[in-house]
């Protein structure tokens, strides 16, 4: 038995490949959009999951430190440390910076932590070069994507910091690259003002200096203690808002990136719909282009089933080839985006399933046209 679809594809192979690649690029864009969405959701959780704490103490009546500004005193960590069920507690700060180097300017989030604290803030698994901070001053660990090299000196505020470590895949909930300094340096950067500002504050009766405020106290619980119960107990005794890591993650997803993820999700759905319409039109047009041959086949006695099978097989071949081209395209360009593009195989397969199903649905229009075609059309009768 002759496979008509295979023969037709072989006959117009170049056209078929160009069509498949064009559709593939369109699918690639959809895959990238899904990847952007996934990347954003993933990034939102990276920092919280990298910090090996399971309790977050923040300013009362706030949703800090990410969803809302939170400022609490650094020494609160001593009080938290003595709470029942707490193994260790450390202070932590977060602030954004605009940095500039020979590769351009970019936004970073600076994480200030106690290098001698017991809680791991820099995920060791992500430290690809150098070491973590081991001094109270002038050492910095940067994200690989900032393009700083080990040993390089970076000016932050009034001081220079030496790059002692480089991390990979460390980003803030907003997708900005992370840099880490000691808590002391971070406080200086946050609260040391210019001389003009100090004089201005003084005239207004405002006392300057480091107020030793941090954004959160992070803590770990002893084994056998439920972080949830410990958190509620701390809330009662300290009059601060306390979240478990799970609650903090939920806050990030539901408050911080909710709108942007919804916007991106909506745009992705629209893009999928547009792609389906375009693919459907291409498949329908492919069928219409063959109407003369189809009429001849019907006239000489080829059954509808054989002709329909040809259309379905060509549709499947186009869908599969486009899907492959789309994935290759997405894979190669995903690294060129400044923020994380998370390409998940399950997303690609779900998309391919949707595309194949709708392509077959679209080919049904072509098949309907085939069934309705008068074979006499072949000879213009």
């Amino acid at each position: 038995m002759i496979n008509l679809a295979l023969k037709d594809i072989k006959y117009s192979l170049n056209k078929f490949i160009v069509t498949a690649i064009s559709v593939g690029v369109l699918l690639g864009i959809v895959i990238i959009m899904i990847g952007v969405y996934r990347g954003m959701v993933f990034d939102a959780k990276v920092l919280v999951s990298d910090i090996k704490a399971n309790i977050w103490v923040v300013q009362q009546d706030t949703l800090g430190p990410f969803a809302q500004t939170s400022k609490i005193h650094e020494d609160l960590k001593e009080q938290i440390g003595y709470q029942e069920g707490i193994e260790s507690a450390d202070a932590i700060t977060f602030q954004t910076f605009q940095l500039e180097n020979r590769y351009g300017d970019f936004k970073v989030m600076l994480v200030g932590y106690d290098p001698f604290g017991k809680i791991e803030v820099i995920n060791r698994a992500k430290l690809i070069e150098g070491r973590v901070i081991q001094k109270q001053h002038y050492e910095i660990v940067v994200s690989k994507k900032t393009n700083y090299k080990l040993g390089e000196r970076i000016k932050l505020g009034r001081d220079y910091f030496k790059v002692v470590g480089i991390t990979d895949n460390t980003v803030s909930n907003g997708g900005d690259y992370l840099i880490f300094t000691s808590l002391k340096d971070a406080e200086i950067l946050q609260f040391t003002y210019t001389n003009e500002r100090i004089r201005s504050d003084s005239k207004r009766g405002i006392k300057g200096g480091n107020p030793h405020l941090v954004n959160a106290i992070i803590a770990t619980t002893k084994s056998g203690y439920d972080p949830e119960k410990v958190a509620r107990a701390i809330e009662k005794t300290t009059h601060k808002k306390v979240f478990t890591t799970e609650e903090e993650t939920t806050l990030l997803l539901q408050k911080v990136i909710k709108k942007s993820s919804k916007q991106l999700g909506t745009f992705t759905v629209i893009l999928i719909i547009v792609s389906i319409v375009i693919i459907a039109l291409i498949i329908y047009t492919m069928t219409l282009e063959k109407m003369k041959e189809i009429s001849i086949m019907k006239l000489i006695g080829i059954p509808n089933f054989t002709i329909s099978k040809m259309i379905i097989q060509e549709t499947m071949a186009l869908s599969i080839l486009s899907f492959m081209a789309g994935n290759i395209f997405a894979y190669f360009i995903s690294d060129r985006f400044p923020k994380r593009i998370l390409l998940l195989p399950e997303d690609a397969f779900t998309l391919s399933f949707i595309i194949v199903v709708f392509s077959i649905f679209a080919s049904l229009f072509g098949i309907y046209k085939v069934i309705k075609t008068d074979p006499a059309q072949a000879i213009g009768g």
Partner: protein
Amino acid sequence: MYKENAITIENLVKKFGKDDNELTVIDGATFSLKKGEFVALVAPSGAGKTTLLMMLGCVLEPTSGKIVIGEEIAYDDKWLIKDDRELRRKKIGFIFQAHYLIPFLNIEENITLLPYQNGESKKVVQPRVKEIMDYLDMSEKMGSMPSELSGGQNQRIAIARALANEPDIILADEPTAALDKERALSVVKMLKRITRERGVTIIMVTHDDRLLPFCDKVLTIKDKKIDVKENIDEII
């Protein structure tokens, strides 16, 4: 009753349109053609030649009348066959003014498409196709694409395709119209030979009087009526 006949037509009527716009093209045609006859269908343009051919091929539904293909009643005021395409696939071959080969199939595939569709095995089909191609002197073109052949060669391939499913009837709609005089004569001689050697009945629409001497009968359409003439000289 119809044993000796390849086609029998009784009181066949074809009208197009309705009410005031109704147009009768064929009005009460009755004739029968024997197996192995080579018949020309001659009429002015627009007289209904292709319409008649399409009705005989069970492509176009008549308004009334009877069509019998071999011994099978295909139409008797309504279609009596379940699958018109199966009937065409198994009993009727078509040759058109243009070759109308499937452009994405090579010559061998164009010819074997119908036999394979009929469920015939490669073992049966291959020797038959080889024989037909030898018969048409086209054996060396089996692997070529239609676009690689000349008009005359493609028309011969169209004839081979029409013969490949061993039909009882071949309906040829001006098969020589696109060919020069020499090639036209060669094709008609070939068709004549096919009727004699293979017992196939061929109805050939033509405007070319020079081809009529090769035919056994001539069907003419005049004033919507069909006349069967066996004396070719009378027509010429």
